[in-house]
């Protein structure tokens, strides 16, 4: 392994600009003559707009334009779309209500977009927005996930019972039969709490219009600028794709929330032409809370059937998923195909049946958030497994190992074909790392100090490397989920790689360059990674679902194959040998059995000067592109074990130890992979202990700032003990499985299993705040005293 090749902990190439304050985020972009947009948002969760008067506001200082939903309609600007069609059990399509970028006659959640003011300064735009007179007729709001279906309040006329869809997966009869044969059935009710993604960089957009050429440019905080261009062009109708450039420069975290095409960037790019000036908008944090797509928000009943020996026979799940007031870009896929196919976990379960009711409510739209459906599934599986082990009086680690899938490939009853894995190896390693044998002593030590200690396991699996286009197409996706790459070799042998993946913290400028350096045998500093600009990169599907390694890098791998193949042709001419006799290794083309060779840089130069061949026999130049479409999902899996200590007097939970063992297949840069694991665990611990988006009964978001919504801080978390096992992924050339979401998927059940272990199996909901833990601890203490 070279110091900068595959497997090396190369320090990140992108870091210099970030640590010196030279990062280029969307809000750092300032265009000549730029004006500022401010969105007037609904203060009501549900209301009819009886009338709106903008005359006074329009005359205020600095105002360049005020636009409403009527103006968008006049210009035939379409509504926002949901790109994944889900069908009801009866085969009918899901019920999608209209989603205008600016409200047309009705607002459906607090923060919904009513009008936009464009002015010389942000302060002037905000002042003018306050002077817009809107006459609302308030309507009752439906907020509660579990009570939305059949509520009197109807969010969309298209869905009179607030049902977006009633969907199912699995064999119901086989599952019922399994339950009839069972010796033991475990039943649990769970709430997967609503979260706000809260990337540290708020969303932002700068729209620009070049009247000379009729070209729009949108700078935006996007994880997938090409998908944004496709949707803005083909569905919303801003401009044809050749007249619309989307640039996603440095993006300060995404976690899913920047996949989607929102109202604000749509309006900014459209308004740039209306006012003849560049238009900039940056969310403040409360706007982010109100209008970014939220995550999770499931209410679930689940049951697990086991035989007399503790072998799992079947699983039944019913989930109600809150999708908010409108269907966001990929929202319908999250509680369906990103959720139910993961309910087999790491376990050999012969029969599974899952039914999902997705509902509209007067809350912000809900869509993918780190893990997207898979954390929700893992929470169901790992809480069921843990509770079952306790009810059966079995050691939770042994119960898991008893039921692990041990032979691969393994076809689950819920679509997925697991290709490879070694779950027992991960569990064994994690048990050693956490010193499971010493747990009894540690529990006794805690008890002597008046504390409660508990341990919690989570054996997770995820399906990522999203995704084979044909497979997702058959399940309702409106797009294919391949990735593209172009490798441009310059005449001096340096390389630019254009990728359709987008980096917003993942370190692609380093890991992708490692791949190129490794394969071409050139210094890593000679490789530049270009992403995030539709004028530079032809097409791409972006970064989410832990897909950039498995899919994005596989596209680069394929393009590099073509570069090497072309290089061999050039080398054959230069070295005057037969092409079949040319080898390429360690940065040199050589003629078999001789000492004649040509280094990669010289080959590149020869390809461009083209003196040794003519265009009839070989085209000049060295540039190749590839599209890579995966043949299967990838299946990262692992075991996370969390050990907590609770102070029953205060309810404060301290995480004392965390052991994570993940199998991500082959790893390009272990430093970056471990960083992804750390960050994912922190977000999952946030969900388990601290975070929860709360709407009151009127639909007001009462957690709409960092003063009300608890973000994990440094002293909420321990240092993490991270280990790995490796079974290379067989379905892509690099053997990569993906690592971006694992921590967030694994960690919530590990924390809750640990807390409930400490509390003598007393159940607790997320977030397990000190108040909730204190109540549960007191209940547990009185129950145990009574027993």
């Amino acid at each position, binding site marked *: 392994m070279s110091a900068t090749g595959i497997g090396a902990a190369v320090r990140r190439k992108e870091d210099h600009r970030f640590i010196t*304050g030279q990062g280029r985020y969307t809000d750092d972009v300032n265009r000549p003559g730029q004006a500022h947009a401010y969105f007037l948002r609904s203060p009501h969760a549900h209301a009819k707009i009886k009338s709106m008067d903008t005359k006074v506001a329009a005359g205020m200082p600095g105002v360049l334009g005020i636009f409403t939903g009527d103006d968008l309609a006049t210009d035939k600007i379409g509504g926002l779309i949901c790109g994944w069609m889900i069908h009801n059990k009866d085969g009918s399509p899901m019920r999608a209500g209209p989603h205008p970028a600016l409200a047309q006659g009705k607002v459906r959640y607090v923060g919904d977009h009513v009008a936009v003011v464009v002015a010389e300064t942000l302060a002037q735009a905000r002042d003018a927005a306050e002077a817009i007179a809107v006459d609302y007729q308030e309507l009752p709001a439906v907020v509660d996930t579990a009570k939305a279906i059949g509520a009197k309040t109807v969010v969309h006329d298209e869905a009179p019972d607030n049902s977006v869809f009633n969907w199912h997966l699995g064999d119901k009869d086989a599952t019922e039969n399994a339950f009839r044969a069972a010796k033991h059935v475990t039943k649990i009710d769970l709430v997967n709490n609503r979260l706000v993604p809260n990337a540290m960089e708020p969303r932002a957009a700068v729209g620009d219009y070049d009247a000379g050429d009729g070209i729009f440019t949108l700078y935006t905080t996007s994880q997938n600028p090409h998908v944004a261009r496709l949707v803005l062009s083909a569905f919303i109708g801003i401009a044809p794709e050749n007249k619309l450039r989307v640039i996603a420069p440095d993006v300060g975290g995404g976690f899913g929330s920047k996949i989607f095409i929102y109202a604000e960037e749509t309006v900014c790019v459209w308004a740039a032409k209306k006012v003849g000036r560049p238009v900039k908008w940056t969310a403040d944090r409360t706007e982010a809370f109100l209008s970014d797509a939220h995550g999770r928000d499931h209410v679930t009943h689940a049951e697990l059937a086991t035989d007399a020996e503790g072998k799992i026979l079947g699983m039944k799940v019913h989930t109600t998923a809150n999708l908010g007031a409108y269907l966001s870009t990929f929202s319908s896929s999250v509680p369906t195909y990103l959720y139910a196919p993961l309910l087999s976990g790491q376990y050999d379960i012969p029969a599974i049946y899952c039914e999902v009711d997705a509902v509209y409510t007067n809350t912000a739209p809900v869509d993918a958030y780190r893990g997207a459906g898979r954390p929700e599934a893992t929470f169901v599986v790992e809480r069921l497994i843990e509770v079952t082990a306790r009810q059966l009086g079995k050691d939770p680690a042994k119960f898991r190992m008893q039921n692990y899938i041990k032979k691969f490939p393994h076809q689950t009853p819920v679509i997925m074909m697991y290709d490879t894995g070694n779950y027992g190896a991960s569990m064994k390693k994690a048990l050693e790392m956490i010193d499971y044998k010493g747990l009894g002593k540690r529990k006794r030590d805690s008890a002597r100090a008046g504390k409660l200690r508990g341990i919690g396991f989570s054996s997770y699996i995820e399906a990522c490397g999203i995704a084979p286009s044909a497979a997702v197409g058959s399940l309702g996706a409106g797009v294919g989920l391949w990735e593209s790459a172009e490798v441009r070799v310059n005449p001096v042998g340096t390389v630019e790689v254009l990728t359709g993946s987008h980096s917003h913290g993942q370190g692609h400028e380093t890991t992708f360059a490692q791949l190129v350096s490794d394969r071409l045998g050139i210094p890593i500093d000679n490789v530049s990674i270009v992403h995030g600009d539709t004028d530079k990169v032809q097409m791409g599907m972006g970064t989410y679902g832990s897909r950039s390694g498995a899919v994005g890098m596989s596209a680069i791998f394929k393009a590099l194959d073509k570069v090497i193949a072309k290089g061999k042709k050039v080398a054959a001419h230069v070295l005057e040998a037969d092409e079949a006799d040319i080898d390429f290794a360690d940065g040199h083309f050589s003629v078999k059995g001789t000492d004649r060779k040509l280094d990669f840089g010289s080959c590149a130069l020869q390809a461009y000067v083209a003196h040794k061949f003519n265009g009839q026999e070989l085209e000049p130049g060295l540039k190749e592109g590839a599209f890579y479409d995966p043949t299967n999902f990838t299946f990262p899996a692992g075991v996370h074990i969390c050990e907590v200590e609770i102070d029953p007097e205060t309810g404060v939970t301290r995480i004392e130890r965390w052991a994570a063992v993940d199998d991500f297949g082959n790893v390009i840069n272990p430093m970056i992979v471990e960083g992804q694991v750390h960050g994912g665990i922190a977000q999952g611990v946030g969900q388990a202990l601290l975070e929860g988006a709360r709407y009151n009964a009127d639909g007001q978001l009462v957690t709409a700032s960092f003063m009300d919504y608890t973000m994990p801080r440094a002293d909420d978390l321990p240092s993490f003990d991270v280990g790995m096992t490796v079974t290379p992924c067989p379905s892509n050339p690099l053997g990569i499985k993906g690592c971006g979401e694992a921590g967030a998927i694994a960690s919530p059940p590990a924390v809750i299993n640990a807390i409930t272990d400490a509390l003598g199996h007393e159940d607790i909901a997320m977030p397990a705040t000190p108040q909730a833990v204190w109540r549960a601890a007191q209940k547990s203490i009185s129950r145990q005293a009574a027993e």
Partner: protein
Amino acid sequence: MATVSLTVNGKAVTATIDPRTLLVQFLRENLRLTGTHVGCDTSQCGACLVHLDGKAVKSCTTLAVSVDGASVTTIEGLAAGDKLHPMQEAFREHHGLQCGFCTPGMIMSAVDMVNRRGHELDEKTIREDLDGNICRCTGYHNIVKAIAAGAEAMGKGAVPARQAAE
């Protein structure tokens, strides 16, 4: 309108501004020093943290006119020319950043922590002292390591001239 005069990263600047201009707006919009970020507007996250007369402040809740005459150091002023500050080096070496958005505030906060608490910082001290800065990417694990290493390196004397002058 109001006039404000400051020394920013060693350079004297004077400007006429709307009196409601926040220090972070003045830095980002008037001076185009965009390394200082706005993450929350409520002095919770610390992305906007700068040094004001040598002490850490949240520039998103500081009116520019209220600090007339002060000396401000931002992330852009931390290195001495091409020579990075040891805390900047430590964040890179220990992978203390991912998306980079909270990073300027983290580094400025870390330098302030060392100025207040010295060069030998244990994990508990760093974690507790860092409660004014939020990172969503790293889980803090590598930030804590970076700060401990950066603090130690600062103790070995490799501190750029301007920082020492504060």
